[in-house]
Structure formats: C-alpha cells, structure tokens
C-alpha cells in the first residue's frame, strides 16, 4: 500500500448490504468471488477450506465453507444464522450480512436487512422469478432498503442470452411494481466464472451497465438516515462529579435524525420543557453540528430533569407521542406464538415500555404478497400487521420516515428473549 492508499483509506465510505439466497443459487460462490477477487480471503483460510473440502470428499473447493462457520452448519451443509463478512476496495469498506434464504429463515433475513443500505437478490437465469425472489424482495421493501441489485446468475448456462436476461428483467419489474423499492439495478452475471462480478464480461457485450462491484463501489449511499427531523434519544447522563467538571451535566446519545447545533432551541420530551443547546461535543472537543449516526454529548442552557429514554427534538418538529400504534411485525420466537393481551416489553430507541398486542389485522403471505385475513395466528417467521397499546406514550416517527425512531423489538418477560421486531406505520 502506498502512502496515497493509506491516506485514502482514512476517507472511505461504508456500505452495508445483505444477500439472501438458498442452497443452489450461487450465493456462496458470489460472496466467495467478491472476497477472493478483492483479496479478502487469506491463504490460511483458503488452505483450511481446501483441506475441509477434501475431507468431505468434494472435488472442487467449496467456498460455502468460508461462510458456514458453526459445527452444525458444516455438518449439515446449511447456513443457520446471519454471518457477517467484511471486505474493502480502495473506495469503500463493505459489510455483508449473509443470510440463508429459505422461508424458515425469514427472521434471519429480516435481521440482516434491518441494518442494510442495499440488498443483492440472486435469480437463477434458468428459473426466472420464483417464490423466493418475491420473498427476498418483499423483505427488502418492508425493511425499507432503498436500493436493490438484482443479479441474474448462471448466465453461462443460458448461453449468455440477452433475451433471457430481458425477459427476467421484465418479469421482475412487473412484480416489483407492487413493492416500495426506489432503485433497482439489474446485472447479468456468472458467479462461477466471474462474469460481470468484478470485471466487465466480454461474453455479454450487449450489457451496457457496470459489473456488480462497480455498482457496489459507486452507488449513492444515504444510509437511510433522516437529516430533516431532529431526534436525539438520551442514552446516558454524564455527571463526572469531579473538581474540573463540578457542575457539568451532559446528555449522551446517538443522533437518530436531523441536525443539532449550538444555540438551537430544543424541546425535551415527554416533559415538554424547552431550552437551548449550550454545546455539542465529543471527547475530541466541541463540534459545530451533530447528525445521524454520530455519538455525541450535549449540554443545555437550563437545568432540566432529563434521564435515559427521553428525547430531545425541536419545538416546531416533534415526533408523534401516542399509546396506540399500528405496526408491521415479524415474529422471531420458535417456542411461543404471539398472544393477544399478553404483556411484552417494548424496546424502542433508548426507551422501554410495557405493551399489549390488541389485534392482528392480517397476516402476509410473503411468497404472493396476499393478505391473509382468516388465519390470524402469528408464529415464528410470520409477518403481519398489528394494533398495539403501550403503557405510556411512545415518541416515534413512522418507519418510512425514520428507520431508527420507527422501529422496535418486543421482549418476552419470562424468557427475556427477543420475540418480535416491529416497524411502526
């Protein structure tokens, strides 16, 4: 790495993307290729999986072994969990949330999608748009991933045919018109041969777009952060009680939306007291402004009683404060289905409230996007719309408006497990 590169490393963006796929669609091969071609697979890792592949009697090195780390996964040849992979090019650092794509892993796909800026959806060129394509796309849309890259894979098995590619693009566009995905790109690839993965393929001169990695490196990232509505959930109150900082009282947290500057008039919720920002600072000193997702501390002009779970916003732009919420949820618990009127703890921003699900409006068939209104039992991997009542007003924005103030999880009070994830409508 030259000095130039080492400086540019300090000025890199971060792109988080998710991949979902099932056993045979070439997802592991694609990830293996991205890691291998970007030199993110090390010799000892490659040697280790070559050795395991041979032990298992496989002829070619099984790149899936790179992502399947747990003993059970290796023994059964399946991916159980979300695995996170990292690679970097001189332009960007990438975090891949690699999730299994079978319907029984819906919760893993939802988890991976919750922090992703972009989703890669793989389609086998021989099969076209199938149920699982719909499922993955629906989840991307539900979790408000702004950018989907549809990779039409195994082009080598359809003679690199332009018309096959065009047919699938038309099929997908037709289906995606029912979803809420603002940007969709289509790339014809062969993960196995590396066509249009890192370099542009000479075998498909009819394709005028860039290879997949080019798209990943150049796509505009806004990280889904809202820079309009100022939201600062208080996470921690700093009171040093030391000689140098005798009267210091700072409010720490991560900005969830909008911009905060010194002198801004702010309101503290739910109490409703207003004051001004005295300073915005970090360990490295005072800063002119704070925006999502920065972790900062603020001091305020007036002494107001503020504790964790409260939110600092602007007087002319407050979040909603309601006890009755409508939300889409995905159920995560394999042992207990959703029980109406059972008490759960809702974790929302830095706040916790008790809540009760009052009604299941409908369940979604995630393969067809149909609403199911006659079966309202919500169990593991089910997605549905619910009406929920909290024990105190929740300070929120809709999930569409702000991913961080519009999302919550439900915790079961007996097992302490996370049983559901919700997006407020």
């Amino acid at each position, binding site marked *: *790495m030259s000095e130039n*590169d*080492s400086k540019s*490393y*300090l000025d*890199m*963006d*971060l792109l988080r993307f998710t991949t979902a796929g099932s056993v045979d669609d070439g997802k592991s091969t694609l990830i293996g290729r991205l890691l291998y071609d970007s030199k993110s697979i*090390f*010799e*000892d890792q490659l040697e*280790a999986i070559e050795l*395991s592949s041979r032990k298992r009697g496989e002829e070619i090195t099984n790149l899936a072994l790179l992502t399947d*780390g*747990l003993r059970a996964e*290796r023994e059964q040849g399946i991916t159980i*969990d979300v*695995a*996170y*992979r*990292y690679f*970097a090019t001189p332009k960007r*650092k990438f*975090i891949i949330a690699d999730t299994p794509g079978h319907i029984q892993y819906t919760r893993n796909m*939802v*988890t991976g999608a*919750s*922090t992703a800026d972009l989703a890669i959806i793989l389609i086998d060129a021989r099969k076209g748009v199938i149920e699982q394509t719909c499922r993955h796309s629906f989840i991307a849309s539900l979790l408000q991933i702004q950018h989907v890259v549809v990779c039409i894979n195994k082009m080598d098995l359809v003679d690199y045919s332009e018309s096959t590619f065009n047919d699938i693009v038309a099929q997908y566009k037709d289906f995606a018109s029912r979803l809420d995905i603002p940007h969709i790109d289509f790339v014809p690839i062969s993960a196995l041969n590396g066509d249009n993965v890192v370099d542009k393929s000479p075998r498909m001169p009819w394709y005028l777009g860039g290879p997949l990695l080019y798209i990943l490196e150049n796509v505009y990232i806004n990280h889904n*952060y809202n820079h309009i509505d100022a939201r600062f959930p208080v*996470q*921690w109150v700093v*009171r*040093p009680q*030391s000689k140098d*900082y005798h009267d*210091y009282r*700072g409010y*720490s*947290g*991560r900005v969830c939306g909008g911009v905060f500057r010194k002198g801004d008039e702010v309101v503290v919720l739910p109490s409703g007291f207003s004051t001004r920002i005295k300073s915005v600072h*970090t*360990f490295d000193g005072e800063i002119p*402004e704070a*925006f*999502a*997702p*920065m*972790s900062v*501390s603020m001091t305020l002009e007036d002494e107001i009683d503020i504790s964790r779970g409260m939110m600092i916003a602007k007087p002319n732009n407050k979040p909603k404060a309601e006890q009755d919420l409508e939300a889409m949820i995905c159920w*995560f618990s394999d042992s207990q289905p959703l029980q109406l009127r059972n008490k759960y703890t809702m*974790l*929302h921003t*830095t706040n916790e409230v008790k809540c009760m699900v009052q009604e299941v409006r409908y369940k979604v068939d995630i393969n067809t996007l149909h609403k199911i209104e006659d079966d309202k039992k919500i169990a593991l991997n089910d997605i549905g719309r619910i009406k929920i009542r909290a024990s105190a007003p929740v300070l929120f924005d809709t999930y569409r408006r702000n*991913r*961080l103030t519009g*999302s919550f999880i439900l*915790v079961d009070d007996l097992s*302490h497990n*996370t049983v559901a*994830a919700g997006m407020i409508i």
Partner: protein
Amino acid sequence: MSSYRLTHLKHLEAEAIYVLREVAAQFQKPVLLFSGGKDSIVMTRLAQKAFHPAKLPFPLLHVDTGHNFPETIEYRDALVDKMGATLIVAHVQDSIDQGRVVEESGVNASRNGLQTTTLLDALELHKFDAALGGARRDEEKARAKERFFSHRNEFGQWDPKNQRPELWNIFNGHKGFGEHFRVFPLSNWTEMDVWQYIALENLDIPSIYFTHEREVILRNGSLLANCPYISVQSNETVMRRMIRFRTVGDMTCTGAIESTANSLEDIISEVAAARMTERGTRADDKRSETAMEDRKKQGYF
C-alpha cells in the same frame, strides 16, 4: 450545506461508543476485559470517549495466565495509571493452586484453555453481569456469527444456535438471575480498521508489535518466542530473528512473523499486503476446525 457524511472509521467509532453506553445503561456491573493487545487498547480509548469527561463507569479485568510477554504487563500498568482506571487482575496460577484447573502437560502445553475457568470465576466473584471484549467478527469463522450483545447462561456458556436476533441499533440486555452478557463493540471492525484507528488516534501500543530481535523456535509452522514456559525439543533450534507480533496472547501460543516494521505506517502497509490472517499465527486456533467455537461455548473470550 454540509454533506452529512462520515468516513467508515467514524461510523465504526460512533457505533462502538453507542454500544459501550448501552452497556453502562443496561447493566448493573459491567467490566472491560483488558489483555494489553491492540483490540483492548482501542476498546479503552473508545470507552474513554464514550464517558468523557467522566471516568470509566466500570473497571478493567485482566486474566493473567502468568505466561504474558513482560512488555504487555509494563504497558498495561502504565496505561491504567495514566487513565486513572481501576484494574482487577485474575490469575490463572490461583485457579491452578486452588485445584480449579489442571495444568496441561506435553510439548504444546498452554494455559490458554485454563483462562476460561479463571475468567468465569472472576465474573462470578465480582458479580459482573456484562463483560466487554474486543473480539471482532473478521477474526475467526465462529466469531463471524457472534452478536454485539451475546447472552451467556448461568454456566457462562454460549449457545450459537439460540442467539438473540439483533436489529437496527436496539440491543436486548434482559436476562435471568446469574446469567451474563459478553459484549463486543468492535464486532464490525477488521484488523485493518483497528490499525488505522490506532494511527488516527495516535495511540501507544506495546513494543512487541514493532520489529525487534528475539530468540525464536519454529514449531508447527509458527515462530514462537523462546521463553521459560516453552520446552525446546531436541529437533528444534533456537534462532535469533527480527520479528514482531500481530496479536498479543500467551507466549506459549502466540506466533511471531518475520518483519522489519517499526512504525504504525509500516505495520499498516504490512497488514494491507498480508496473505495470512492474524490468527493464522495462533496455535490455539489450530487445534481443530472448530476450536474457537468449542472454546466459546465453554465461556472463552
């Protein structure tokens, strides 16, 4: 108008600080596991940043195998002094003396595995309910599936098939009596990120990360430092080499690499060009294909 853009290092920093503050807020008695290695050095800096201008709201815990590099201990004591932090040291030797564990025998004997008992005993003794560690997902395949907030049952064990899902930036630290959490704020960092951050923040690191001349032996493909805790076999020769370490663990299982890197910039160039993972030099991971997963299930770091 600003672009509202953060570099990837600032992103990772903001995320780690958020996680550290969640730990302080959600748990009664957290502790930061400190080894003197580069990851735990970055962790202490991030903790400093998270709670500034107050002091750390938790102590540091070092599980001391007694087989440390002396340079690491010197560094540790100086850092703790400078930060005004509280340090608790748990000694593997005490666990051996109390008959809690039995020392391994044989050529490759190491106290690495014994640390688990010492660690779990220390967590129980001090009633710590969250232990902050510097482990990263890019280090090892079992760690790639680890959560930020990793639940441990009352026996300190990890159940990889029954982990809590983590969505957005919401972390569920609810738990039953006697259970605890391991928390990994550096989950999304890579080795390169750690080095770049050390350079960006201009952090001091133990001298063994830089090139120096040392007596080493070659064993199972790893260069191990010659020390009183290793018995040199008749077919092995002690050599003097210019080496440095990429990770800091026990002297018995931390392999060195031949290197002339004597500045952070040199190290960064070396890491960028490296074709082996840093744990490729760790004999403790080479014991089996799932060595890390097996140790983690028992309660290892």
